[in-house]
Protein backbone atom coordinates (compact mmCIF):
# COMPACT_ATOMS: atom_id res chain seq x y z
CA UNK A 1 0.00 0.00 0.00
CA UNK A 2 2.78 2.45 0.81
CA UNK A 3 3.63 2.90 -2.86
CA UNK A 4 0.22 4.49 -3.38
CA UNK A 5 0.64 6.74 -0.36
CA UNK A 6 1.44 9.79 -2.54
CA UNK A 7 -1.95 9.34 -4.24
CA UNK A 8 -3.80 9.32 -0.93
CA UNK A 9 -1.77 12.35 0.03
CA UNK A 10 -2.91 14.24 -3.08
CA UNK A 11 -6.52 13.18 -2.49
CA UNK A 12 -6.43 14.23 1.18
CA UNK A 13 -4.93 17.60 0.29
CA UNK A 14 -7.59 18.34 -2.36
CA UNK A 15 -10.37 17.17 -0.03
CA UNK A 16 -9.17 19.53 2.71
CA UNK A 17 -8.88 22.45 0.28
CA UNK A 18 -12.43 21.93 -1.00
CA UNK A 19 -13.85 21.71 2.50
CA UNK A 20 -12.44 25.20 2.99
CA UNK A 21 -9.23 24.68 4.95
CA UNK A 22 -6.72 27.46 4.23
CA UNK A 23 -4.66 26.24 1.25
CA UNK A 24 -1.31 26.77 2.96
CA UNK A 25 -2.32 24.76 6.03
CA UNK A 26 -3.93 22.00 3.97
CA UNK A 27 -0.64 21.55 2.13
CA UNK A 28 1.68 21.67 5.15
CA UNK A 29 -0.67 19.63 7.35
CA UNK A 30 -1.09 16.72 4.94
CA UNK A 31 2.65 16.81 4.31
CA UNK A 32 3.28 16.45 8.04
CA UNK A 33 0.81 13.61 8.55
CA UNK A 34 1.88 11.57 5.52
CA UNK A 35 5.53 12.49 5.95
CA UNK A 36 5.38 11.23 9.51
CA UNK A 37 3.88 7.92 8.31
CA UNK A 38 6.82 7.40 5.95
CA UNK A 39 9.80 9.02 7.66
CA UNK A 40 8.69 9.34 11.33
CA UNK A 41 10.62 12.03 13.23
CA UNK A 42 13.01 12.70 10.34
CA UNK A 43 10.21 14.54 8.52
CA UNK A 44 10.76 17.68 10.58
CA UNK A 45 14.33 18.03 9.30
CA UNK A 46 13.05 18.13 5.76
CA UNK A 47 10.49 20.75 6.82
CA UNK A 48 13.17 22.89 8.44
CA UNK A 49 15.40 22.66 5.37
CA UNK A 50 12.57 23.90 3.15
CA UNK A 51 11.81 26.76 5.52
CA UNK A 52 15.46 27.83 5.49
CA UNK A 53 15.66 27.49 1.69
CA UNK A 54 12.67 29.73 1.12
CA UNK A 55 13.58 32.22 3.83
CA UNK A 56 17.05 32.61 2.29
CA UNK A 57 16.06 32.94 -1.37
CA UNK A 58 17.00 36.44 -2.47
CA UNK A 59 14.87 36.24 -5.63
CA UNK A 60 11.74 35.93 -3.48
CA UNK A 61 12.49 39.30 -1.89
CA UNK A 62 10.98 40.67 -5.12
CA UNK A 63 7.54 39.47 -3.92
CA UNK A 64 7.07 42.01 -1.10
CA UNK A 65 8.73 44.68 -3.25
CA UNK A 66 6.36 44.23 -6.20
CA UNK A 67 3.37 43.97 -3.87
CA UNK A 68 4.41 47.16 -2.09
CA UNK A 69 4.87 48.88 -5.45
CA UNK A 70 1.31 47.89 -6.38
CA UNK A 71 -0.25 49.05 -3.12
CA UNK A 72 1.52 52.40 -3.39
CA UNK A 73 0.57 52.93 -7.06
CA UNK A 74 -3.04 52.08 -6.25
CA UNK A 75 -3.11 55.05 -3.87
CA UNK A 76 -0.91 57.36 -5.90
CA UNK A 77 -3.70 58.93 -7.95
CA UNK A 78 -1.91 57.86 -11.12
CA UNK A 79 -4.93 55.85 -12.23
CA UNK A 80 -7.10 58.98 -12.39
CA UNK A 81 -4.44 60.82 -14.41
CA UNK A 82 -3.97 57.93 -16.82
CA UNK A 83 -7.69 57.45 -17.24
CA UNK A 84 -8.18 61.03 -18.28
CA UNK A 85 -5.16 61.09 -20.59
CA UNK A 86 -5.90 57.80 -22.37
CA UNK A 87 -9.52 58.68 -22.96
CA UNK A 88 -8.60 62.02 -24.48
CA UNK A 89 -7.27 59.99 -27.40
CA UNK A 90 -9.55 56.97 -27.61
CA UNK A 91 -13.02 58.16 -26.68
CA UNK A 92 -14.06 59.14 -30.21
CA UNK A 93 -13.39 55.64 -31.58
CA UNK A 94 -16.06 52.92 -31.71
CA UNK A 95 -15.89 51.29 -28.29
CA UNK A 96 -13.37 53.95 -27.38
CA UNK A 97 -14.01 53.95 -23.66
CA UNK A 98 -13.45 50.19 -23.48
CA UNK A 99 -10.34 50.45 -25.68
CA UNK A 100 -8.99 53.18 -23.44
CA UNK A 101 -9.68 51.08 -20.37
CA UNK A 102 -7.69 48.14 -21.73
CA UNK A 103 -4.82 50.44 -22.76
CA UNK A 104 -4.77 51.94 -19.32
CA UNK A 105 -4.74 48.46 -17.78
CA UNK A 106 -1.70 47.58 -19.90
CA UNK A 107 0.21 50.63 -18.70
CA UNK A 108 -0.88 50.00 -15.14
CA UNK A 109 0.03 46.30 -15.38
CA UNK A 110 3.45 47.18 -16.76
CA UNK A 111 4.14 49.42 -13.79
CA UNK A 112 2.95 47.08 -11.06
CA UNK A 113 3.16 43.38 -10.34
CA UNK A 114 -0.19 42.54 -8.79
CA UNK A 115 -3.77 42.26 -9.96
CA UNK A 116 -6.92 42.94 -7.99
CA UNK A 117 -5.82 46.35 -6.89
CA UNK A 118 -5.62 47.36 -10.54
CA UNK A 119 -9.04 46.06 -11.33
CA UNK A 120 -10.74 47.86 -8.46
CA UNK A 121 -9.07 51.16 -9.25
CA UNK A 122 -9.76 50.95 -12.98
CA UNK A 123 -13.28 49.62 -12.50
CA UNK A 124 -14.31 52.42 -10.14
CA UNK A 125 -13.20 54.95 -12.74
CA UNK A 126 -14.42 53.32 -15.92
CA UNK A 127 -17.71 51.62 -15.07
CA UNK A 128 -19.74 54.78 -14.36
CA UNK A 129 -18.51 56.48 -17.54
CA UNK A 130 -19.23 53.45 -19.74
CA UNK A 131 -22.69 53.04 -18.19
CA UNK A 132 -23.40 56.70 -18.83
CA UNK A 133 -22.68 56.26 -22.53
CA UNK A 134 -24.87 53.11 -22.70
CA UNK A 135 -22.13 50.57 -23.35
CA UNK A 136 -23.40 47.00 -23.30
CA UNK A 137 -23.09 45.63 -19.78
CA UNK A 138 -21.38 42.36 -20.70
CA UNK A 139 -18.76 44.35 -22.63
CA UNK A 140 -18.17 46.57 -19.62
CA UNK A 141 -17.73 43.55 -17.35
CA UNK A 142 -15.48 41.68 -19.76
CA UNK A 143 -13.29 44.71 -20.33
CA UNK A 144 -12.81 45.40 -16.63
CA UNK A 145 -12.21 41.75 -15.66
CA UNK A 146 -9.89 40.91 -18.53
CA UNK A 147 -8.01 44.19 -18.46
CA UNK A 148 -7.70 44.11 -14.70
CA UNK A 149 -6.14 40.67 -14.72
CA UNK A 150 -3.44 41.53 -17.27
CA UNK A 151 -1.05 42.14 -14.36
CA UNK A 152 -0.02 38.49 -14.39
CA UNK A 153 1.03 38.25 -18.01
CA UNK A 154 2.39 41.77 -18.53
CA UNK A 155 5.77 42.05 -16.82
CA UNK A 156 6.72 42.70 -14.08
CA UNK A 157 4.58 40.16 -12.30
CA UNK A 158 4.63 38.67 -8.82
CA UNK A 159 3.44 35.37 -10.27
CA UNK A 160 6.67 35.09 -12.25
CA UNK A 161 8.82 35.80 -9.21
CA UNK A 162 7.25 32.76 -7.52
CA UNK A 163 7.11 30.67 -10.69
CA UNK A 164 10.83 31.06 -11.47
CA UNK A 165 12.26 29.46 -8.32
CA UNK A 166 9.56 26.77 -8.17
CA UNK A 167 10.12 25.75 -11.82
CA UNK A 168 13.88 26.28 -11.55
CA UNK A 169 13.87 28.79 -14.40
CA UNK A 170 15.49 32.23 -14.40
CA UNK A 171 13.06 34.97 -13.36
CA UNK A 172 14.81 37.37 -15.76
CA UNK A 173 14.21 35.02 -18.74
CA UNK A 174 10.55 34.72 -17.79
CA UNK A 175 10.06 38.46 -17.35
CA UNK A 176 11.57 39.18 -20.75
CA UNK A 177 9.97 36.14 -22.41
CA UNK A 178 6.45 37.15 -21.41
CA UNK A 179 6.61 40.58 -23.01
CA UNK A 180 5.37 39.51 -26.46
CA UNK A 181 2.75 36.99 -25.26
CA UNK A 182 1.44 39.69 -22.90
CA UNK A 183 1.26 42.23 -25.69
CA UNK A 184 -0.39 39.69 -28.00
CA UNK A 185 -3.09 39.02 -25.42
CA UNK A 186 -3.71 42.72 -24.80
CA UNK A 187 -3.68 43.32 -28.58
CA UNK A 188 -6.32 40.66 -29.11
CA UNK A 189 -8.51 42.26 -26.43
CA UNK A 190 -8.23 45.61 -28.21
CA UNK A 191 -8.91 44.11 -31.63
CA UNK A 192 -11.94 42.22 -30.37
CA UNK A 193 -13.46 45.27 -28.68
CA UNK A 194 -12.85 47.41 -31.76
CA UNK A 195 -14.34 44.90 -34.21
CA UNK A 196 -17.33 44.22 -31.95
CA UNK A 197 -18.12 47.91 -31.71
CA UNK A 198 -17.69 48.45 -35.44
CA UNK A 199 -20.01 45.55 -36.25
CA UNK A 200 -22.49 46.27 -33.46
CA UNK A 201 -22.24 49.99 -32.71
CA UNK A 202 -24.84 49.66 -29.94
CA UNK A 203 -22.34 47.69 -27.82
CA UNK A 204 -20.03 50.67 -27.50
CA UNK A 205 -21.52 53.78 -29.08
CA UNK A 206 -19.29 56.60 -30.25
CA UNK A 207 -19.31 59.64 -28.05
CA UNK A 208 -20.41 62.84 -29.79
CA UNK A 209 -17.69 65.52 -29.89
CA UNK A 210 -17.84 67.69 -26.83
CA UNK A 211 -18.14 71.45 -27.40
CA UNK A 212 -15.22 72.01 -25.04
CA UNK A 213 -12.85 69.58 -26.81
CA UNK A 214 -9.43 70.65 -25.53
CA UNK A 215 -6.86 71.84 -28.09
CA UNK A 216 -4.06 69.50 -29.15
CA UNK A 217 -1.37 71.22 -27.09
CA UNK A 218 -3.45 70.86 -23.94
CA UNK A 219 -4.09 67.19 -24.70
CA UNK A 220 -0.40 66.53 -25.19
CA UNK A 221 0.40 68.24 -21.90
CA UNK A 222 -2.16 66.19 -19.95
CA UNK A 223 -0.86 63.03 -21.60
CA UNK A 224 2.75 63.80 -20.81
CA UNK A 225 1.93 64.61 -17.19
CA UNK A 226 0.11 61.29 -16.80
CA UNK A 227 2.26 59.05 -18.93
CA UNK A 228 5.87 60.05 -18.28
CA UNK A 229 6.08 59.00 -14.61
CA UNK A 230 4.75 55.45 -15.24
CA UNK A 231 6.96 55.12 -18.32
CA UNK A 232 9.90 56.11 -16.16
CA UNK A 233 8.94 53.38 -13.67
CA UNK A 234 8.46 50.79 -16.39
CA UNK A 235 11.93 51.63 -17.60
CA UNK A 236 13.41 51.49 -14.09
CA UNK A 237 12.06 47.98 -13.53
CA UNK A 238 11.97 46.29 -16.94
CA UNK A 239 14.77 48.30 -18.51
CA UNK A 240 17.21 47.54 -15.74
CA UNK A 241 16.47 43.83 -16.05
CA UNK A 242 16.58 43.80 -19.86
CA UNK A 243 19.85 45.70 -19.97
CA UNK A 244 21.31 43.38 -17.37
CA UNK A 245 21.92 46.21 -14.90
CA UNK A 246 20.01 44.72 -12.01
CA UNK A 247 18.73 41.38 -10.75
CA UNK A 248 14.92 41.10 -10.61
CA UNK A 249 14.92 41.78 -6.86
CA UNK A 250 17.00 44.92 -7.27
CA UNK A 251 14.79 46.05 -10.14
CA UNK A 252 11.76 45.50 -7.91
CA UNK A 253 13.40 47.65 -5.23
CA UNK A 254 13.99 50.42 -7.78
CA UNK A 255 10.34 50.15 -8.81
CA UNK A 256 9.21 50.33 -5.17
CA UNK A 257 11.32 53.44 -4.67
CA UNK A 258 9.85 54.83 -7.89
CA UNK A 259 6.32 54.21 -6.60
CA UNK A 260 7.10 56.15 -3.42
CA UNK A 261 8.53 59.02 -5.46
CA UNK A 262 5.43 58.97 -7.65
CA UNK A 263 3.11 59.37 -4.66
CA UNK A 264 5.24 62.37 -3.67
CA UNK A 265 5.08 63.74 -7.24
CA UNK A 266 1.28 63.55 -7.31
CA UNK A 267 1.13 64.87 -3.72
CA UNK A 268 -0.67 61.82 -2.33
CA UNK A 269 2.02 60.76 0.11
CA UNK A 270 1.26 60.61 3.84
CA UNK A 271 2.52 58.53 6.73
CA UNK A 272 -0.93 57.03 7.32
CA UNK A 273 -1.05 55.92 3.70
CA UNK A 274 2.46 54.46 3.91
CA UNK A 275 1.44 52.57 7.05
CA UNK A 276 -1.65 51.14 5.30
CA UNK A 277 0.51 50.14 2.36
CA UNK A 278 3.17 48.32 4.39
CA UNK A 279 0.53 46.45 6.41
CA UNK A 280 -1.33 45.39 3.27
CA UNK A 281 1.98 44.40 1.69
CA UNK A 282 2.76 42.18 4.66
CA UNK A 283 -0.64 40.47 4.57
CA UNK A 284 -0.41 39.71 0.85
CA UNK A 285 3.24 38.67 1.04
CA UNK A 286 2.73 36.39 4.04
CA UNK A 287 -0.29 34.81 2.33
CA UNK A 288 1.72 34.10 -0.85
CA UNK A 289 4.78 32.90 1.04
CA UNK A 290 2.71 30.66 3.33
CA UNK A 291 1.36 28.80 0.30
CA UNK A 292 4.85 28.71 -1.18
CA UNK A 293 6.13 27.18 2.07
CA UNK A 294 3.24 24.73 2.31
CA UNK A 295 3.54 23.76 -1.36
CA UNK A 296 7.29 23.22 -1.20
CA UNK A 297 6.97 21.13 1.94
CA UNK A 298 4.13 19.16 0.36
CA UNK A 299 5.93 18.35 -2.89
CA UNK A 300 9.11 17.54 -0.93
CA UNK A 301 7.29 14.82 0.98
CA UNK A 302 5.26 13.79 -2.09
CA UNK A 303 8.40 13.16 -4.13
CA UNK A 304 10.39 11.58 -1.30
CA UNK A 305 7.51 9.18 -0.66
CA UNK A 306 7.61 7.99 -4.28
CA UNK A 307 5.43 10.52 -6.08
CA UNK A 308 7.88 10.89 -8.98
CA UNK A 309 7.90 7.18 -9.73
CA UNK A 310 4.12 7.18 -9.57
CA UNK A 311 3.61 10.08 -12.00
CA UNK A 312 6.22 8.62 -14.36
CA UNK A 313 4.42 5.28 -14.22
CA UNK A 314 1.12 6.95 -15.00
CA UNK A 315 2.62 8.80 -17.98
CA UNK A 316 4.34 5.63 -19.23
CA UNK A 317 1.12 3.66 -18.77
CA UNK A 318 -0.89 5.98 -20.99
CA UNK A 319 2.01 6.07 -23.46
CA UNK A 320 1.46 9.72 -24.32
CA UNK A 321 3.09 11.58 -27.18
CA UNK A 322 4.94 14.74 -26.11
CA UNK A 323 2.17 17.00 -27.43
CA UNK A 324 -0.57 14.92 -25.86
CA UNK A 325 1.26 15.22 -22.56
CA UNK A 326 1.49 18.99 -22.99
CA UNK A 327 -2.24 19.28 -23.66
CA UNK A 328 -3.02 17.02 -20.71
CA UNK A 329 -0.90 19.10 -18.32
CA UNK A 330 -2.28 22.43 -19.53
CA UNK A 331 -5.81 20.98 -19.48
CA UNK A 332 -5.42 19.95 -15.85
CA UNK A 333 -4.15 23.40 -14.92
CA UNK A 334 -7.07 24.98 -16.80
CA UNK A 335 -9.62 22.83 -14.97
CA UNK A 336 -7.94 23.60 -11.65
CA UNK A 337 -8.37 27.29 -12.50
CA UNK A 338 -12.13 26.99 -12.07
CA UNK A 339 -11.73 26.54 -8.33
CA UNK A 340 -8.13 27.33 -7.34
CA UNK A 341 -6.30 30.64 -7.29
CA UNK A 342 -3.04 31.18 -9.20
CA UNK A 343 -0.64 30.58 -6.35
CA UNK A 344 -2.25 27.26 -5.40
CA UNK A 345 -2.31 26.04 -9.02
CA UNK A 346 1.31 27.01 -9.43
CA UNK A 347 2.54 25.38 -6.23
CA UNK A 348 0.56 22.17 -6.63
CA UNK A 349 1.15 21.55 -10.33
CA UNK A 350 4.45 23.07 -11.41
CA UNK A 351 6.73 20.86 -9.25
CA UNK A 352 4.98 17.75 -10.58
CA UNK A 353 4.81 19.04 -14.18
CA UNK A 354 8.32 20.39 -14.70
CA UNK A 355 10.22 17.03 -14.68
CA UNK A 356 7.68 15.65 -17.18
CA UNK A 357 7.95 18.74 -19.39
CA UNK A 358 11.74 18.77 -19.54
CA UNK A 359 11.70 14.98 -19.90
CA UNK A 360 9.51 15.34 -22.99
CA UNK A 361 12.05 17.76 -24.46
CA UNK A 362 10.09 21.02 -24.19
CA UNK A 363 11.76 24.32 -23.43
CA UNK A 364 11.03 25.07 -19.75
CA UNK A 365 10.78 28.85 -20.25
CA UNK A 366 8.28 28.37 -23.06
CA UNK A 367 6.24 25.95 -20.96
CA UNK A 368 6.21 28.39 -18.03
CA UNK A 369 4.78 31.11 -20.29
CA UNK A 370 2.07 28.72 -21.55
CA UNK A 371 1.34 27.96 -17.92
CA UNK A 372 1.10 31.68 -17.17
CA UNK A 373 -1.46 32.11 -19.95
CA UNK A 374 -3.47 29.23 -18.50
CA UNK A 375 -3.28 30.79 -15.04
CA UNK A 376 -4.65 33.94 -16.65
CA UNK A 377 -7.89 32.06 -17.36
CA UNK A 378 -8.25 31.13 -13.70
CA UNK A 379 -8.97 34.79 -12.92
CA UNK A 380 -11.97 34.79 -15.23
CA UNK A 381 -13.52 31.31 -15.03
CA UNK A 382 -16.50 31.02 -12.68
CA UNK A 383 -17.41 29.92 -10.03
CA UNK A 384 -14.25 31.09 -8.29
CA UNK A 385 -13.09 33.96 -10.47
CA UNK A 386 -11.17 36.59 -8.51
CA UNK A 387 -11.76 39.09 -11.32
CA UNK A 388 -15.55 38.70 -11.03
CA UNK A 389 -15.30 38.75 -7.25
CA UNK A 390 -13.57 42.13 -7.33
CA UNK A 391 -16.04 43.40 -9.92
CA UNK A 392 -19.02 42.46 -7.74
CA UNK A 393 -17.50 44.56 -5.01
CA UNK A 394 -17.55 47.72 -7.13
CA UNK A 395 -20.28 47.27 -9.77
CA UNK A 396 -23.66 49.02 -9.35
CA UNK A 397 -26.68 46.69 -8.83
CA UNK A 398 -27.88 47.29 -12.40
CA UNK A 399 -25.05 45.01 -13.56
CA UNK A 400 -26.04 41.41 -12.89
CA UNK A 401 -23.92 38.33 -12.33
CA UNK A 402 -25.17 37.01 -15.67
CA UNK A 403 -23.77 40.13 -17.41
CA UNK A 404 -20.43 39.33 -15.83
CA UNK A 405 -20.43 35.68 -16.89
CA UNK A 406 -21.47 36.63 -20.43
CA UNK A 407 -18.88 39.36 -20.49
CA UNK A 408 -15.83 37.31 -19.52
CA UNK A 409 -16.57 34.47 -21.95
CA UNK A 410 -15.19 36.10 -25.14
CA UNK A 411 -12.08 37.12 -23.25
CA UNK A 412 -11.47 33.57 -22.03
CA UNK A 413 -11.67 32.51 -25.70
CA UNK A 414 -9.15 35.24 -26.60
CA UNK A 415 -6.84 33.83 -23.96
CA UNK A 416 -7.17 30.46 -25.64
CA UNK A 417 -6.25 32.09 -28.96
CA UNK A 418 -3.17 33.61 -27.33
CA UNK A 419 -2.27 30.19 -25.97
CA UNK A 420 -2.59 28.65 -29.44
CA UNK A 421 -0.45 31.40 -30.98
CA UNK A 422 2.32 31.04 -28.41
CA UNK A 423 2.19 27.24 -28.74
CA UNK A 424 2.48 27.39 -32.51
CA UNK A 425 5.17 30.07 -32.52
CA UNK A 426 7.56 29.47 -29.60
CA UNK A 427 9.69 32.34 -30.97
CA UNK A 428 7.14 34.75 -29.47
CA UNK A 429 8.58 33.74 -26.10
CA UNK A 430 12.13 32.74 -26.88
CA UNK A 431 13.35 35.37 -29.35
CA UNK A 432 13.57 38.39 -27.04
CA UNK A 433 15.43 36.73 -24.13
CA UNK A 434 17.88 35.17 -26.59
CA UNK A 435 18.59 38.61 -28.09
CA UNK A 436 18.80 40.45 -24.79
CA UNK A 437 20.03 38.00 -22.22
CA UNK A 438 21.91 35.71 -24.58
CA UNK A 439 20.17 32.51 -23.50
CA UNK A 440 19.23 29.84 -26.00
Amino acid at each position, binding site marked *: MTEYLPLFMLAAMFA*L*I*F*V*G*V*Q*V*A*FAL*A*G*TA*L*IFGYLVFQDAV*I*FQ*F*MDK*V*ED*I*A*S*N*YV*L*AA*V*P*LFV*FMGTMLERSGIAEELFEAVHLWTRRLPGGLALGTVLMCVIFAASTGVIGATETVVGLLAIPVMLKYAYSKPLICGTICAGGSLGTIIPPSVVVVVLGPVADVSVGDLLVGMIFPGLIMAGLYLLYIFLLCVLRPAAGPRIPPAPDEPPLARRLLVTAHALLPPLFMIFAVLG*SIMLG*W*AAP*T*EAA*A*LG*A*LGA*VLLTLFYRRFSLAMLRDS*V*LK*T*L*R*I*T*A*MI*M*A*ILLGGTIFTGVFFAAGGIALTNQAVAYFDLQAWELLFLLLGMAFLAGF*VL*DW*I*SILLIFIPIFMPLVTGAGFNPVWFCILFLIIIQTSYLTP*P*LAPAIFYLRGIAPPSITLLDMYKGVLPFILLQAVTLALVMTFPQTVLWLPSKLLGFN
Partner: protein
Amino acid sequence: MEGRAALPQRPGQAGLKGLLGVLDRISGSTGALAAWLVVPLIAASCYEVFSRYVMGAPTIWAYEVGTMVMGTHFLIGLAYTLREGEHVRVDLFYAQVSRKKRALIDAFTYVVLLLPVAAWLSIGLAQKVAAAWESQERSGMSAFNPVIWPFRAVMCAAFALLALQALAQLIRCYQILRDAE
Protein backbone atom coordinates in the same frame (compact mmCIF):
# COMPACT_ATOMS: atom_id res chain seq x y z
CA MET B 1 -22.47 40.77 22.43
CA GLU B 2 -24.53 42.99 24.74
CA GLY B 3 -27.24 40.35 25.03
CA ARG B 4 -24.69 37.78 26.01
CA ALA B 5 -23.23 39.90 28.77
CA ALA B 6 -26.41 39.51 30.81
CA LEU B 7 -26.02 35.74 30.93
CA PRO B 8 -24.18 34.27 33.90
CA GLN B 9 -20.56 33.69 32.89
CA ARG B 10 -19.10 30.27 33.31
CA PRO B 11 -15.87 30.17 35.30
CA GLY B 12 -12.78 30.66 33.17
CA GLN B 13 -14.67 32.47 30.49
CA ALA B 14 -13.24 35.89 31.32
CA GLY B 15 -9.77 34.36 31.54
CA LEU B 16 -10.17 32.87 28.08
CA LYS B 17 -11.26 36.21 26.67
CA GLY B 18 -8.28 37.89 28.32
CA LEU B 19 -5.91 35.29 26.89
CA LEU B 20 -7.40 35.79 23.43
CA GLY B 21 -6.82 39.54 23.71
CA VAL B 22 -3.19 39.05 24.75
CA LEU B 23 -2.48 36.58 21.93
CA ASP B 24 -4.10 38.87 19.36
CA ARG B 25 -2.06 41.82 20.56
CA ILE B 26 1.19 39.84 20.32
CA SER B 27 0.55 38.96 16.66
CA GLY B 28 -0.67 42.45 15.93
CA SER B 29 2.34 44.28 17.32
CA THR B 30 4.97 41.87 15.93
CA GLY B 31 3.22 42.03 12.55
CA ALA B 32 3.09 45.83 12.58
CA LEU B 33 6.82 45.93 13.32
CA ALA B 34 7.70 43.36 10.65
CA ALA B 35 5.60 45.19 8.07
CA TRP B 36 7.97 48.17 8.15
CA LEU B 37 10.86 45.95 7.09
CA VAL B 38 10.00 46.59 3.42
CA VAL B 39 11.53 50.04 3.90
CA PRO B 40 15.07 48.81 4.79
CA LEU B 41 14.66 46.10 2.13
CA ILE B 42 14.06 48.76 -0.53
CA ALA B 43 16.88 50.89 0.86
CA ALA B 44 19.45 48.06 0.95
CA SER B 45 18.67 46.82 -2.57
CA CYS B 46 18.64 50.30 -4.11
CA TYR B 47 21.86 51.19 -2.31
CA GLU B 48 23.47 48.06 -3.76
CA VAL B 49 22.58 49.12 -7.34
CA PHE B 50 23.76 52.68 -6.61
CA SER B 51 26.98 51.45 -5.04
CA ARG B 52 27.72 49.09 -7.95
CA TYR B 53 27.12 51.52 -10.81
CA VAL B 54 27.78 54.94 -9.34
CA MET B 55 30.51 54.16 -6.79
CA GLY B 56 31.86 51.29 -8.87
CA ALA B 57 32.02 48.94 -5.89
CA PRO B 58 29.31 46.44 -4.89
CA THR B 59 28.64 46.07 -1.18
CA ILE B 60 29.41 42.78 0.51
CA TRP B 61 26.42 42.94 2.83
CA ALA B 62 23.38 43.97 0.74
CA TYR B 63 22.64 40.49 -0.64
CA GLU B 64 22.57 38.66 2.67
CA VAL B 65 21.03 41.48 4.66
CA GLY B 66 18.31 41.73 1.99
CA THR B 67 17.68 38.00 2.23
CA MET B 68 17.42 38.02 6.02
CA VAL B 69 15.17 41.08 6.03
CA MET B 70 12.88 39.42 3.46
CA GLY B 71 12.76 36.18 5.49
CA THR B 72 12.03 37.99 8.74
CA HIS B 73 9.33 40.10 7.05
CA PHE B 74 7.15 37.28 5.79
CA LEU B 75 7.87 34.73 8.55
CA ILE B 76 6.90 37.09 11.37
CA GLY B 77 3.93 38.19 9.25
CA LEU B 78 2.45 34.66 9.10
CA ALA B 79 0.79 34.98 12.53
CA TYR B 80 -0.52 38.51 11.87
CA THR B 81 -1.95 37.38 8.53
CA LEU B 82 -3.70 34.48 10.26
CA ARG B 83 -5.23 36.92 12.75
CA GLU B 84 -6.47 39.10 9.89
CA GLY B 85 -7.97 36.04 8.17
CA GLU B 86 -6.03 36.64 4.97
CA HIS B 87 -4.65 33.16 4.33
CA VAL B 88 -6.63 32.16 1.23
CA ARG B 89 -9.09 29.33 1.15
CA VAL B 90 -11.48 27.95 -1.46
CA ASP B 91 -14.84 28.94 0.02
CA LEU B 92 -17.10 27.18 -2.45
CA PHE B 93 -18.38 24.89 0.33
CA TYR B 94 -17.16 26.83 3.37
CA ALA B 95 -19.21 29.95 2.55
CA GLN B 96 -22.43 27.90 2.28
CA VAL B 97 -22.39 26.18 5.68
CA SER B 98 -23.43 27.49 9.08
CA ARG B 99 -21.15 29.48 11.38
CA LYS B 100 -20.94 26.47 13.67
CA LYS B 101 -19.81 24.10 10.91
CA ARG B 102 -17.24 26.65 9.83
CA ALA B 103 -15.93 26.80 13.37
CA LEU B 104 -15.66 23.00 13.35
CA ILE B 105 -13.67 23.03 10.09
CA ASP B 106 -11.39 25.69 11.52
CA ALA B 107 -10.94 23.87 14.81
CA PHE B 108 -9.95 20.74 12.89
CA THR B 109 -7.48 22.79 10.82
CA TYR B 110 -5.80 24.30 13.86
CA VAL B 111 -5.67 21.17 16.03
CA VAL B 112 -4.77 18.57 13.41
CA LEU B 113 -2.90 20.57 10.74
CA LEU B 114 -1.53 23.93 11.80
CA LEU B 115 -0.63 23.55 15.49
CA PRO B 116 1.45 20.37 15.01
CA VAL B 117 3.35 21.91 12.07
CA ALA B 118 3.99 25.27 13.73
CA ALA B 119 4.81 23.91 17.18
CA TRP B 120 7.08 21.14 15.92
CA LEU B 121 8.89 23.50 13.53
CA SER B 122 9.50 25.98 16.31
CA ILE B 123 10.83 23.29 18.69
CA GLY B 124 13.04 21.79 15.97
CA LEU B 125 14.35 25.21 14.99
CA ALA B 126 15.04 26.04 18.66
CA GLN B 127 17.42 23.09 18.78
CA LYS B 128 19.09 24.32 15.59
CA VAL B 129 19.47 27.78 17.11
CA ALA B 130 21.19 26.26 20.13
CA ALA B 131 23.51 24.19 17.92
CA ALA B 132 24.38 27.20 15.75
CA TRP B 133 25.08 29.27 18.89
CA GLU B 134 27.38 26.55 20.28
CA SER B 135 29.39 26.24 17.08
CA GLN B 136 29.10 29.91 16.07
CA GLU B 137 28.16 28.58 12.60
CA ARG B 138 28.36 31.11 9.78
CA SER B 139 26.17 31.34 6.69
CA GLY B 140 28.87 30.80 4.05
CA MET B 141 26.56 32.40 1.45
CA SER B 142 28.67 35.48 0.67
CA ALA B 143 31.76 37.39 1.78
CA PHE B 144 29.64 39.02 4.48
CA ASN B 145 29.29 35.59 6.12
CA PRO B 146 27.34 36.46 9.30
CA VAL B 147 26.75 34.10 12.23
CA ILE B 148 23.58 32.23 11.49
CA TRP B 149 21.90 31.83 14.89
CA PRO B 150 20.11 35.20 15.00
CA PHE B 151 18.26 34.55 11.74
CA ARG B 152 17.49 30.99 12.88
CA ALA B 153 16.13 32.45 16.12
CA VAL B 154 13.80 34.65 14.06
CA MET B 155 12.50 31.59 12.18
CA CYS B 156 11.98 29.78 15.48
CA ALA B 157 10.14 32.78 16.96
CA ALA B 158 8.00 33.14 13.83
CA PHE B 159 6.61 29.62 14.11
CA ALA B 160 6.12 30.01 17.87
CA LEU B 161 4.08 33.15 17.11
CA LEU B 162 2.12 31.25 14.47
CA ALA B 163 1.37 28.47 16.97
CA LEU B 164 0.19 31.05 19.53
CA GLN B 165 -2.08 32.72 16.99
CA ALA B 166 -3.44 29.29 15.99
CA LEU B 167 -4.28 28.85 19.68
CA ALA B 168 -6.06 32.21 19.63
CA GLN B 169 -8.08 31.17 16.57
CA LEU B 170 -8.93 27.93 18.34
CA ILE B 171 -10.30 29.91 21.29
CA ARG B 172 -12.46 31.82 18.78
CA CYS B 173 -13.81 28.52 17.40
CA TYR B 174 -14.56 27.36 20.94
CA GLN B 175 -16.45 30.60 21.65
CA ILE B 176 -18.56 30.22 18.51
CA LEU B 177 -19.37 26.58 19.28
CA ARG B 178 -20.19 27.40 22.90
CA ASP B 179 -22.46 30.30 21.93
CA ALA B 180 -24.23 28.13 19.38
CA GLU B 181 -25.37 25.72 22.06
